[in-house]
């Protein structure tokens, strides 16, 4: 059978080999997220731009959510999967309360449960980088980060999404003081780790996002920072470049 299709008025009549279609269940909706744990607080920030390819679908589409029990969560990458995962997790917290007399879900339990949700779809994964932030049982700030199939780790800070590769080395340097040494020690003595204040962290997050928005087309429009303290979750919004 001929493979060529001649464009003519009768083109519909010309037989050709069957065309194969393949549905691609994933897409990339851009955006970037960032979580930092402090001494007695944690922040989770994300930009509010939602894209497909070069199109901006929305300039304000929140991607970081308060899921209850003083935990904030984001699942950045393929937005539909992110939404599905967060909705599922919110729902599960609700059922946890029904079944356990309104008991609060602790951070580390939430972290382990999200692993189960992600690994449950091991062979058709949620295409997202997931981050949660909150306070641990001792009241210290905690950030957990995941790969798409549920491998997770508690960290001091983590960037995820489109501009993760731009932001992560900056965080290494400014949060964990990597490659910083005490002057006069000939590079022998590392600058010791110390917790940053909430104000410092927020400024750092803003710097990181302004830098990312400058160089990455999938990042911009707005920055929403969710701050978790023992008094609950608070949101701060500030604008980013819109070009």
């Amino acid at each position, binding site marked *: 059978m001929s493979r060529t299709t001649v464009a003519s008025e009768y083109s519909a009549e010309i037989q050709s080999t069957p065309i194969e279609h393949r549905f691609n269940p994933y897409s990339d909706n851009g955006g970037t997220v960032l979580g930092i744990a402090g001494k007695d607080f944690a922040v989770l920030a994300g930009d509010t731009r939602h894209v497909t390819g070069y199109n901006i679908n929305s300039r304000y589409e929140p991607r970081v959510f308060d899921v209850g029990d003083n935990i904030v969560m984001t699942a950045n990458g393929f937005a539909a999967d992110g939404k599905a995962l967060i909705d599922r997790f919110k729902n599960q917290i609700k059922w946890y309360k029904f079944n356990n007399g309104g008991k609060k879900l602790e951070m580390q339990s939430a972290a382990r449960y999200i692993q189960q949700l992600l690994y449950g779809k091991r062979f058709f994964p949620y295409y997202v980088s997931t981050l949660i932030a909150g306070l641990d049982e001792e009241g210290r700030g905690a950030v957990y980060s995941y790969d798409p199939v549920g491998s997770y780790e508690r960290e001091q800070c983590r960037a995820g999404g489109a501009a993760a*590769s*731009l932001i*992560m*080395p*900056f965080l*290494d*340097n400014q949060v964990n003081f990597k*490659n910083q040494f005490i002057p006069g020690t000939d590079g022998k003595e590392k600058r010791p780790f110390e917790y940053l204040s909430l104000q410092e962290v927020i400024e750092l997050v803003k710097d990181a996002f302004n830098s990312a928005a400058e*160089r990455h087309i999938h990042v911009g429009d707005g920055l929403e920072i969710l701050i978790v303290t023992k008094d609950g979750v608070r949101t701060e919004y500030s604008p980013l470049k819109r070009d």
Partner: protein
Amino acid sequence: MSDPSSINGGAAVAMVGKDCVAIASDLRLGNQSLGVSNNFEKVFQFGDKTFLGLTGLASDVTTLSQVFRLKTNLYKLREERSIEPQTFANLVSSTLYEKRFGPYFIGPIVAGLDSKTDKPFICGFDLIGCIDFAKDFIVSGTASDQLYGMCESLYEPNLEPEDLFETISQALLNAVDRDALSGWGCVVYVITKDRVVKRVLRTRQD
């Protein structure tokens, strides 16, 4: 990965300061995942205050550094003076474009001071010679994403030479630590009106 520009790995960056420029690179040369050499400099000097950073396919890095050595030597014989950064940038551009349909797989960056005005000059290129003039900084190599993030956040205009050194070093160091194909040592050149200072940085060895 069979992408020629990321077989060997490597990163380079240049920055402008107050009456000074800095250019730096890592020292790694690898074969895919295997580290082969920790002494492969990617910054070359082609004039009194004209420097070229070359990342990408190591074979082409060597070839081009030799081509430019030849061309700048002939230039010096004809003109009886060493080449200016601006002039050299145009030489790089035209040399690369000659190979428009079979390019060298490299990411060159140029940094230097104009010998007459002492004005800082930096620029970068794509692999076929399109010049990217920049006022602030230029990055190149397999850690370019990381370098963009670092430079965009650490850089400020009009830094003094010592501060420029610290800024470019921290930018490069932290960037290459997040790239598996870069690192294994760094070298930094700070170029000022009356001297060029080269420093080799001690870095993580993984």
